[in-house]
């Protein structure tokens, strides 16, 4: 029906619509962003753009605030990864227990943060949990006569508070994927572990976690990419303060672009974020393929 030439090209016809959309939606803004990062361009005078080559990149890497934001982003991302994946595994493991009743109700409840807009989630946490005077946390600490800190206004606690709030939003994704993954583990493996006298912890460690390796890796990459570019939740919680203690790269880029009106530098920061994430994604895909091959 099809000639040899058609056999090799027809696949392209099938993916062409998606590919074109992808180029338009992802590729074009990316190219525009990269182009702007090579220019001196200010928001109030957007039409006048001056080519400066890699000067913006050179300055960004020398700017102590960029380096600080990079470190803050790394801590924030790592913190969210540990909490979201850690709590995701624990909650899923508990949910999977035969002792749990109304399992679907519990799962539905755990999914609520996931469907909530990050800004709304951030405002809710700021007002109802972290608020110094009326927040839930300080109401509890007050009951025990403990100090009632300004969680979001003290440098020492603000980053931790934002990590916890953001992890709250990311954990349901982990639960969803891990729970689905748990159902794919053959019952024989549990049976074998039981016959060998393995405890629940040992079963989790030696049977479940190795089987869930690719899924953990998958959730990790989603959590990392999401936390790495997080903006809404942080803006709603702290706006990047106090000082620069919660200024992650996305907030830094926003400040440069909107507050300083320096769109060239804002795009430079954003593009470095893309490079970091693209590198990370490449490492992930390589790892994922190896791990998947090993588990199969």
């Amino acid at each position, binding site marked *: 029906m099809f000639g040899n030439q058609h056999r090799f090209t027809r696949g392209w016809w099938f993916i062409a619509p998606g590919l074109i959309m992808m180029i338009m939606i992802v590729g074009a803004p990316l190219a525009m962003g990269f182009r702007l990062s090579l220019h001196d361009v200010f928001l109030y005078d957007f039409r006048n753009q001056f080519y400066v080559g890699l000067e913006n990149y050179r300055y960004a890497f020398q*700017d102590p*605030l960029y380096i600080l934001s990079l470190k803050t982003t790394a801590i924030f991302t790592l913190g969210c990864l540990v909490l979201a994946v850690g709590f995701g595994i624990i909650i899923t493991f508990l949910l999977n227990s035969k002792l749990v009743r109304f399992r679907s109700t519990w799962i539905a409840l755990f999914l609520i943060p996931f469907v909530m807009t990050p800004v709304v989630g951030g405002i809710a946490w700021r007002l109802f949990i972290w608020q110094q005077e009326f927040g839930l946390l300080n109401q509890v600490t007050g009951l025990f006569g403990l100090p009632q800190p300004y969680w979001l206004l003290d440098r020492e606690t603000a980053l931790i508070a934002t990590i916890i709030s953001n992890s709250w939003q990311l954990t349901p994704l982990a639960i969803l994927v891990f729970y689905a993954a748990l159902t794919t583990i053959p019952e024989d493996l549990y049976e074998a572990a039981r016959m060998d006298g393995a405890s629940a912890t040992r079963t989790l460690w030696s049977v479940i976690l190795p089987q869930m390796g690719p899924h953990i890796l998958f959730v990790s990459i989603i959590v990392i990419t999401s936390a790495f570019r997080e903006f809404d939740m942080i803006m709603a919680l702290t706006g990047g303060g106090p000082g*620069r203690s919660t200024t992650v790269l996305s907030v830094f880029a926003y400040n440069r672009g*909107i507050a300083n*009106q320096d769109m060239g530098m804002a795009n430079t920061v954003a593009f470095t974020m893309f490079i970091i994430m693209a590198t990370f994604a490449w490492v992930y895909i390589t790892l994922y393929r190896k791990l998947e091959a090993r588990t199969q």
Partner: protein
Amino acid sequence: MSYSTFAKSLAGLTLASAMAAGIASAQETTIRWALHPGEEADAVVNYFAPKYYEETGIRVIGEILPPDQLRDRMSIEAIGGTGRWDLGYHSPGWFGSFADYVVDLTPYIEKYDFDVSAYPDLVVESHMRSSARPGEYIALPTTPAAPMLIAREDFFSHPDEQAAFREQYGRELEIPTTFAELKEVADFFTRPAGATVAGETLDRPLYGWADALGSGNGIARSFIVMLYSTGLGFDENFQPDLDHPILREVTDYFVDIAKNNAPREAQNWAFLEGLNYFRDGRLAMATMWPQGIATVEDPAGQAAGKVAYQPLPVWEDNLAGYDQGVPFLGGGGVLVFDTPQAEEAFKFLKWMLQDEEVEWAKQSLQFSRSAHFTNPELRAMQPYFEAFLPAYEKTLEAVFIRQGIPEYGAAMWQGTVDYITDLFSGDLTAEQAQNRWVRNMNQTFRRAGYIN
């Protein structure tokens, strides 16, 4: 029907139709205004807009936006040409960035007899003009405002306090007229709970001085008052003198007084919130923007009727030879965007600010036109206006106005925000913050073509 009856009927019908059309057209006219929250916004929404609608049938819809979103959203709508707002309030530091999207008000000012001379020259320069639109008026001032020093008169006049101060500092206790004196007096009045002040035991700590020190605009607004009093800035050749050692001096002074004499809570205040502390007897002195006067003179508070008002202290050895503190002339004005309603929008502003000038001052508690300082009705409106209005008029005589370049906001205001935020928080060293500011300002001016 005779010819004359027919002609009269026709004329009557035409007139009625024209009136009906006029009314219908007026009823269809809606002016939309992006507002910054505050007493003046409430006055627009709750008083002037309904009154104007009653008088003219023209609806004015004020949309009060969060302060930290106002500029971004106005910029986005203006650049996008959506015509969402006919009027937009903003601080003049950023007027230049809207220069391409607003109308020249000069023809309207002439056509409708808007009296520009009713405002002090510096207000006109700052809140009506921009070098991005030379020779034109691009805004009308609604809330030009500058901060002043307030103090508890009863503390300063108490014999025990006077004697103690004389013994400690070897001079009379007076409301400070220099920043060096301000620090001494602030130290003197900073006392823990259980100590006494003016013969009374304190149940909570008393702080010598405070201003809003919240991250971002709060602390920048507070710091900039002291910064400009040193005479720093950039000259007409756009050479920043921010690498001058006096910048470090004023920064050290500010960080010292802000950390040691102001309450910790001040670091959460964005603008006027801290004046509650003054009202409640927890501050001896404060920097007050005029919008806060109703708070400090709240009859339910401890400070009412005991407040002294004066312009800010002078920074000794300042670079510009100022003889009083030079606060930043803040507040803002209203830009008329280039929309089909521009003329109607101007007419509304003129009615509110000029035809209703006394009512505007009463409702908004904003004072800038000459009538606001001379009108006997206003002077008598509150017992404390007799002391406040002359001191405020004097404050407005020596203010720092932003340079009218489009880059001012990014280079100077945001530069100040970044500089003091990074230093106060300890995220950058003084040298790093200073170098960063100078570099950013030079880069901005170079790119704009002001310097080579």
